[in-house]
């Protein structure tokens, strides 16, 4: 299954972000380091997000990089304080990797990245924007990515729902029988 730019823009639009700037414009904005006190260069921010996405997204998905960069950049930009909170959660993932494994998260093999997230407790944590490290990582990173995917047309199609909740996919699909 191919995730397309259309999915990212559709997901963005249903999150209230006017996608008029276009994907390129949004990626551009992710290239700027915001002045939020979080020590995380934009390139690293993108790398970490993508690395987590590769853990939490199904392996049969293609086009993850563009989807994540377009979607997350647009969203994080659109909401006050949201990107800072997300960046802070990403920085925590990295800090813990350095402390516990003596490696940067991005230097870990894919399986070890997953193990690291589980050891942080992110898989079983209850998402909470104001919670513990694991709860905030779950909320701002993992659930951010899962929300983007499973409210998008491609994510819906993966599961077998033509118009997933949160996506304004019109009023035809509920009337149609299975294909």
């Amino acid at each position, binding site marked *: 299954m191919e995730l397309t730019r259309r999915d990212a823009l559709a997901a963005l639009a249903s999150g209230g972000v006017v996608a008029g700037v276009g994907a390129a414009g949004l990626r551009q904005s992710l290239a700027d380091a915001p002045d939020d006190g979080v020590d995380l260069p934009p390139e690293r921010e993108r790398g970490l997000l993508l690395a987590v996405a590769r853990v939490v997204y199904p392996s049969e998905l293609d086009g993850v990089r563009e989807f994540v960069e377009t979607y997350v950049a647009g969203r994080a930009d659109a909401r006050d304080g949201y990107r800072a909170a997300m960046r802070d959660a990403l920085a925590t993932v990295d800090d813990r990797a350095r402390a516990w494994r003596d490696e940067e998260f991005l230097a870990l093999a894919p399986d070890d990245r997953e193990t690291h997230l589980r050891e942080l407790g992110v898989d*079983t944590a209850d998402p909470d924007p104001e919670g513990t490290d694991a709860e905030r990582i779950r909320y701002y990173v993992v659930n951010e990515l899962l929300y983007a995917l499973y409210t998008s047309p491609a994510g819906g199609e993966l599961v077998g729902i033509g118009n997933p909740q949160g996506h304004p996919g019109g009023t035809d699909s509920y009337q149609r029988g299975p294909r």
Partner: protein
Amino acid sequence: MSGRGESAGADGIDRTPSERVDVCAVGAGPAGALVAHRLADAGYDLVVLEAGERFDPADRLERMERSIRPGHDHLDVWDMGGERDAYSNGGEMFYPLNSARVKGVGGSTNHWQGMVMRLHELDFELESRTGVGADWPVGYGDLRPYYAEAERELGVAGADDNPFAPPREEPFPMPAFRPSHSDSLFADACEGVGVAMHSVPNARNSEPYDGRGECVGYGTCKPVCPSGAKYSADVHVRKAESEGARVIDRAPVQRLVHGDAGNRVDAAVYATPDGREHRQEARQFVLAAGGVETPRLLLLSESERYPDGLANSSGLVGRYFMDHLFAGMGGTLDEPTRQNHVGFITSESHQFYDDADAEVGSFKLEFLNYAGPSPVGTALSADEWGDDLLDDLRGSYGNHVGMGALAGQLPREENRVTLDPTTTDDHGNPVPRIHWSLDERTRNTLERANEIQREILTELGVDVEWTVGPDDTGPAFHHMGTTRMGTDPDESVVNPRLRTHDLANLWIPSSSVFVTGGALNPTLTIAALALKAADHVEAKL
């Protein structure tokens, strides 16, 4: 009293009172909004005082996300809860009041589902026809023209295919939403057991209407429609304002104050966020604060003259509290059922509604389009991710079906809203206390609904996995009965013109005046009553 414009709040909004106006309305839900729009349109000077805030439509997508994503309390979607909204329970059954209302411009219709039906003739004549309950002092015929107007105002999509509905002449303003794939699965089973299905009137645009777009299928209607295709009463608040009405948000009315003679309200005393109190004077007052806050405000407005509260010479303010009760059943089929694409239902059956007698009441059956889990919701609270999560989602989504039902409750004096002197709200006022219980007839009705649901689901070949019946039922969030209508001032609070018996300029267009509740969602009837009240108020101006 301060003059208008003298002080503005921290948000720069002037919340000081206007010079004595023609009409002051309390509450900006559908009842208050429709009256305000009508009277402003007719050229009257009007102030609406609303306890909650003015929600920004641009925030709806964020509210939708809050409703889908775990990590937020469901009350956070519309900022309910806390000291402002404190309440308590005193009856046999717990009543979750804050899940059942929204405070803010648009009122509870911000959160509502938007199913809108006319009550049946039977509901107005329940005692005469069945020997239980009571009769209304007005009949279906009296409300009929107002129902048609209400359907135009709200924008109702419907079809004339319901053989059990009360008579109507004019078509619905918009065509009905077409049946779902899931409905088509139910259709054969229903035919097999002799149950007739028909469309559902929805206050939701099936095509562009009244400047709002058609439904685009976000699937989150309850608790929030980001597109505005679902009607909510902020629509009429905006219309009223464009006709010159003044709507003051974050202005909870603390009490109504009567004049020396005791037969007229002089002013509504309201609080503002800066901690001050103001008096809004008016010739006529319209109390539209919903079925719980309306009786509460009357009780809070006690005076030397009226120690038991305003408009309460009958002692019935707060009594006869009613809601509709839910019965449901569902399970899985061995084929795709295509649920959770939209957040509303497209088929019901009112076949058994008029069979009501002394033992079993009216009920309606609903065929759900949102049975079982929504994949995104499951994904966000799962302990798995990656391929394992996708496998889970594919396994859990796809073949659920479900049915709902609403049953009516008899009006009983002991079900009531009182003041709880042991707990106070953010302004030091006693909070509402809900005393709520179920009568035997309602239990019978829920059982009967379950029986028919089981028959249909069995015919359909469903593996029944859940049932909600008399022992675990819950309320549908329709607050009715607490200032009932009648001709006898000893037996009722308002007269058939919706004016309180005791005060000559106090009007209540609300489900609180319902004498019986039927088993149909109340808001179309509230809207019809609001339009009727507007006529009566106008006649006095």
